[in-house]
């Protein structure tokens, strides 16, 4: 039992830390998340990490609800619950607090510096997330083509991303399945 509790505690601390530091939003958390659950703890393999992330894209709701699947894999239903709370509650509280503070500090000139200074860091983290997932997921011409076509379509027009995920899955199933 104490082993289980230790696992749950570690899950909570790691996931809360990742979500608090990933200032670019959910996908910016991917590299650190991967370090925790694959490299450090071996809770998941590269393959499982990639596949669970893809599942999260298909499921309704915020795409980082994938943390629940990881939590469940690691420590059952309690793990799923702990992972969700750790990933979403502390960072939401931080965002809420920061938002209120922000409005109070409005005239302070450093506020604009913080906004401008952190924007490229956030985008950099997002790019690092893309990079990591690309390394795990692009394993040949078909997958590379699917990724590039999906990028092009999304940049050209607003479509529901779910359709692109479904289309990518179908195409790859036809080609490789």
């Amino acid at each position, binding site marked *: 039992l104490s082993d289980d509790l230790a696992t749950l505690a570690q899950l909570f601390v790691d996931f809360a830390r990742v979500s608090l530091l990933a200032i670019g939003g959910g*996908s910016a958390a991917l590299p650190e998340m991967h370090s925790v659950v694959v490299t450090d703890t071996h809770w998941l393999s590269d393959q499982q990490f990639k596949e669970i992330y893809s*599942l999260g894209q298909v499921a309704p709701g915020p795409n980082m609800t994938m943390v629940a699947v990881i939590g469940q894999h690691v420590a059952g239903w309690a793990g799923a619950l702990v992972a969700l709370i750790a990933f979403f509650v502390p960072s939401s509280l931080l965002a809420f607090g920061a938002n209120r503070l922000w409005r109070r500090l409005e005239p302070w000139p450093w506020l604009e510096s913080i906004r401008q200074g952190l924007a*490229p860091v956030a985008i*950099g983290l997002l790019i690092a997330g893309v990079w990591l997932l*690309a390394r795990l*997921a692009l394993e040949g011409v078909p997958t590379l083509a699917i990724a590039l076509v999906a990028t092009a379509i999304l940049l050209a027009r607003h479509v529901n991303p779910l359709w692109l995920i479904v289309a990518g899955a179908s195409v*790859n199933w036809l*080609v490789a399945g």
Partner: protein
Amino acid sequence: VLGLGALYVSYANELWMRAVLGGAAAAAVGLLLATALRLGRPQLRRPLDLAILLVTAIAVGEFRLPLVWVVPAVGAVSIWLYRPRPGAKETHP
């Protein structure tokens, strides 16, 4: 999600499941890339921002440095580079 997760566990070793999820993951890469490019459009056009962005992306994506170090360090430098300058007009459009 957890329903899909359960489904995944039962079929994870089937060949077709591999292909389906591989395709979904590839499309997800495209999705993320498009999101990053769209959100980052202003930053990708400014040399200073682009440099900060690349340092962050390489530190985290390639060298896998922990965010606990990268975010405060790069963030602090970046905020300092954008420090308020009395009298100076905003340099960026």
